[in-house]
């Protein structure tokens, strides 16, 4: 797997986690798999059939065919344009907004490509968190290092205070 693919996947995973977190935090109405939506996308875009993840087509918006609250970047985008579960008119409106504002994603679908693999889908519509440092094992190392430095500083301060005769009796 290339480094850019890894980065893209990590970004996509981060985006999904972030949106689920954000939805959960505010008790927002969550998107769920709506069985009619894939067919509605086909009809709205005038496609010959399900071109992404046939036969169900759930993965156009969700990471899995079981749907749920997690969304792929394209699903997030539709939600941002106002899609409501079980409401095909809101889907139609959202798709027209995508067509207007992100036409390359619609082209992806029409050409049988997964728009979620298009870097534009992940980059344009998902918040990213943090500064520049990578987390994971590095975060744990930094935490340990920070604790070590803090203890060392405190010990040094204590020694200095003892030398100056200001230390509290132990």
């Amino acid at each position, binding site marked *: 797997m290339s480094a850019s693919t890894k980065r893209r996947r990590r970004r996509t995973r981060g985006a999904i986690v972030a949106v*689920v977190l954000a939805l959960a935090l505010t008790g927002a109405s969550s998107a769920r798999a709506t069985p009619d939506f894939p067919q509605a996308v086909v009809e709205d875009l005038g496609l010959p059939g399900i071109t992404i993840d046939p036969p169900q087509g759930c993965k156009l918006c969700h990471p899995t065919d079981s749907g749920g609250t997690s969304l792929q970047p394209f699903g997030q985008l539709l939600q941002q344009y106002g899609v409501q579960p079980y409401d095909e008119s809101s889907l139609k409106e959202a798709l027209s907004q995508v067509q207007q504002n992100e036409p390359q994603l619609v082209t992806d679908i029409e050409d049988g490509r997964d728009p979620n693999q298009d870097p534009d889908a992940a980059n344009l519509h998902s918040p990213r968190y943090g*500064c520049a440092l990578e987390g994971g094992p590095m975060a744990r190392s930094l935490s340990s290092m920070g604790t070590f430095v803090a203890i060392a500083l405190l010990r040094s301060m204590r020694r200095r205070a003892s030398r100056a005769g200001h230390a509290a009796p132990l």
Partner: protein
Amino acid sequence: MRASRRIGWGVALAFGLALLLATSSAQAYPWMIRHGYTGCMPCHTDPSGGAGALTEYGRAQSDLLLRTHYGQASSSDEADRTSGFLAGIVPLPEQLRLGGDFREAFFSNKVEGAPLQQELITMRADLYGDVKVGRFRAAGAIGYVPEGDLEASLTTTPTDNVISREHWLGVELDDDGAWLLRGGRMALPFGIRMIEHTLWARVLTRTDLDDAQQYGASLSFSRDQLRGEVMAIAGNFQIHPDEYRERGYSAYVELAALSTLAVGASSLFTRATRDIVYGVTDYRYANGLFARYAPVPSLVLLGEADSVYQSLTWNGHRGGYAAFLQADYEPLQGAHLMVTGEAMNGGSSGEPSSFDAWLSGVWFLLPHIDLRLDGIVSTLGVPAPPGGSSSYTHVTTWLAQFHVFL
């Protein structure tokens, strides 16, 4: 289909609750008004309390007034030496206030119709400090979270991040530090700043002490019966890209009519080009009233009611509210029994109001150590699906916490 929809909503809301509870809590005890403390500054380095280090005086009061003394006279004027940083082992100069928090919890959550969820959660593992040189102040916090608190993250992965909830520079504008001008990342001044950061009033207004801090400039004051803070919000620079950052203001003012009664009002307005939740341009308004009252020293009543209105491009408008009332009874110093009732409506189309009740016990059993148990029963309103009717999902939550502060 409707049953599965209800379960879906319940699971989503419960997952939200889990994530909320999976994140940190801070020291913020507004029920200290029972001892006549209407303001925060005597004990907290943050002028509005709640976040960051305690002052030396605050540490002394935490020893004298907060914990159980087991037969010793609690009215002694002299705090135990162990009230200091690291139990008093490390003496600090007066200008340097350091602290730390570690809070671990066992979390159990049962959503009607869904499997039981149980896990251990590291709620907080933070170190923080405040330096005062003349009239100049600098404060900061750093911590580690295995999960959550992304909006306070310094690192960039979905889990295992180094975080900084607060970091700011300030200058005291008068000799006694009643006026403080600050710039940096700070907790938003709004409503009652309290340890229960998952209260709907905090969540819906996005003003909790967990990871909802923002960058900006703030002016605070605390003198006699009046205290308040106004903050110009420049956005959370730990979120990228810039279009997700909220800009606006947040403010509160509180008047202590008596030494045991304080009433206040809060206001907030922000605009984000792309809202972190809804992903569209969002104008967010919140306004509210709050009060703290100790009719007798053993009982404190805390209440807050906030209206929240959001104008969402392509997603219409959402007008909702959140309110709570909490009674804190302290039959024995250091042992608290709390009952809290909440109501909330997020403002979705056709969303019925949600309600919950908390029964909580907190015991400050030793210097620097306390235990807490919460039982929460929630009735969550589920918006009506197209052509259907609204419904409710019931959730039962237990949370047992162990807390050590340095």
